[in-house]
């Protein structure tokens, strides 16, 4: 596995750079900062996993990159150039998406062929005959028999639908695919197949993935880097092995320790967390403090002074925690 590379070689090209991105939703009940100053790099040919609990802003961030939503402020640079709010066809071609729900990602009223034909016809897939061949080819790539071409989505299983969605994303020969929880509603057995396919495709086409998920075991196996999102803030970021080996932010720690695992061996890899089961009432919105403050049992005075600054722990990893989990605490893990 490529992810074995602990640190990326110097000069690993940044394909997408996100700088201080904010996205506010103004609601009757107040303003929600779905993204609160996110800065991240996505490297060409790599997989960046975006993890975090529900509502932390993962999909919102994905949407900014896809251009289906516009940020309130901040910049997104693609190959070093500012991405315009209104994307041109060329830009659209280069960034594609696979969504979470296999049930809504395909238009139930169109056949597999029609679904795959759309990106081809937009991005100059040639005359009809040629497009048809290309569709067959795409189906073969994702492992769907070509006689499924005239089928409607309802006659496909969840896994097959996700494959078709993947084929659709591949159709325009993109550079980047945003994978928004592509396997979370699939059975483990099907998930395993999709994950293999993803890894395979990445190797074949040099794809760059933004892999959004809340399943950390999957992240461990597929991502090169991980960004942990909490309430619109990236609280920790780094290469996968290092982050899993030594999580520093308290939220990351909590997240990792809650992973249900299958063996003692894995159990030993999880950091310890003191599960205080007392539930607090709805968390008050925290602006101007560490976003995790209301739930953090390790809070110290400085946590409430402001959004904690980034602290680099290695050339590749950093966190934003005032009272991080000590470096050598792995041994405590039980």
């Amino acid at each position, binding site marked *: 596995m490529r992810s074995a590379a602990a640190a990326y070689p110097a000069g690993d090209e940044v394909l997408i750079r996100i700088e201080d991105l904010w996205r506010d939703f103004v609601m009757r009940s107040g303003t929600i900062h779905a993204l609160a100053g996110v800065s991240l790099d996505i490297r060409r040919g790599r997989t960046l996993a975006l993890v975090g609990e529900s509502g932390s802003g993962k999909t919102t961030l994905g949407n900014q990159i*896809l251009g*289906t939503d516009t940020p309130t402020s901040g910049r997104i640079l693609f190959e070093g150039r500012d991405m315009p709010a209104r994307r041109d*066809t060329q830009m*659209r071609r280069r960034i594609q998406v696979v*969504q979470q729900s296999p049930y809504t990602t395909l238009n139930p*009223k169109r056949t597999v062929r029609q*679904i795959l034909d759309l990106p081809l016809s937009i991005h100059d897939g040639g005359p009809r005959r040629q497009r048809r061949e290309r569709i067959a080819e795409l189906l073969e790539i994702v492992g769907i028999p070509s006689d499924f071409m*005239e089928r409607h989505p309802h006659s496909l299983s969840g896994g097959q639908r996700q494959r078709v969605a993947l084929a*659709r994303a591949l159709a*325009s020969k993109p550079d980047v695919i945003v994978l928004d929880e592509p396997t979370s509603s699939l059975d483990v057995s099907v998930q395993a197949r999709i994950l293999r396919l993803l890894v395979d495709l990445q190797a074949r086409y040099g794809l760059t993935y933004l892999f959004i998920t809340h399943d950390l075991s999957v992240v461990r196996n597929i991502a090169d880097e991980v960004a942990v999102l909490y309430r619109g803030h990236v609280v920790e970021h780094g290469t996968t092995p290092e982050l899993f080996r030594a999580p520093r932010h308290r939220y990351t720690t909590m997240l990792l320790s809650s992973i249900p695992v299958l063996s003692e061996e894995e159990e030993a890899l999880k950091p310890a967390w003191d599960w205080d089961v007392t539930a607090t009432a709805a968390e008050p919105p925290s602006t101007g403090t560490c976003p995790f403050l209301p739930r953090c049992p390790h809070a110290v005075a400085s946590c409430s002074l402001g959004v904690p600054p980034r602290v680099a722990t290695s050339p590749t990893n950093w966190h934003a925690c005032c009272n991080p989990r000590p470096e050598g605490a792995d041994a405590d893990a039980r």
Partner: protein
Amino acid sequence: MMARRFQSRAWYRFSAEPMAVLGLVLLAAITLAAILAPFVTPFPEHASSFVDFRNMSQPPSASHWFGTDLVGRDVLTRVVYGYRISLTVGIVVLGLAVPLGVTLGMIAGYAGGRLGAVIMRITDVFLAIPALVLAMAVLGVLDRTLINGLIALAVLWWPWYTRMVYNQTRAIRNEGYVVAAQVVGASHSWVLFGEILPNLVPSILTKFTLDLGFVILVASALSFLGLGVEPPTPDLGSMVAEGAGYLPDMWWMPVFPGLAILLVVLAFNLVGDGLRSMFGDGM
């Protein structure tokens, strides 16, 4: 093969509702009778200008099953011919109202923002006036001809589609496949008509079927108020209205056309309900 299977599954669901099948049979019978009226009615000449004062106001009998009216015309014949008008009215009215309402609803739902708000406010205004009253007002403006009656009904019908389609479009707008089409770079019109519209078809079709019945109902109500088509064209609502003046002595005059309206509306409703359960969505 899968398509066949789907069709037969749809039919299975539809036919699991015996009432829906009954409705379909009824509808087929009514439509056929209306189309073949010159051949199936006993006195086709009674549908146009005809008087026979010697035979007027006869109660139902073997030769006139539904009796005769005040100028001696066969009520059964006129009821069957009345269906011609009713069905035409239903189809034409919705033929005008549905495309308009659907287009506006899709645009409002998809565009959202100010444009959507403006469209929906206008829709609200139309919806705030009871339909029948609005139609009457419109008919007050226009001359009382069949065409204008159709326009009046279309005017009051489109907002319902706008509203339904608006809500559904808003729900669908964020569905995965719509987003995916946008991401792929599809144009707005493609997204609207290629991705969203096909998914609205089942509910539009269902509502269309139900509404065909209701348009007929409202149209008959308008004729009942004296705002319908001109004689001697047989029109069910006017027949009821006219007959109502002769109760109870000439009960057959309003009762049979009344039953006829009921029957056709019922048929459309049964079929509409069947479609609804076939498409299996709570609308």
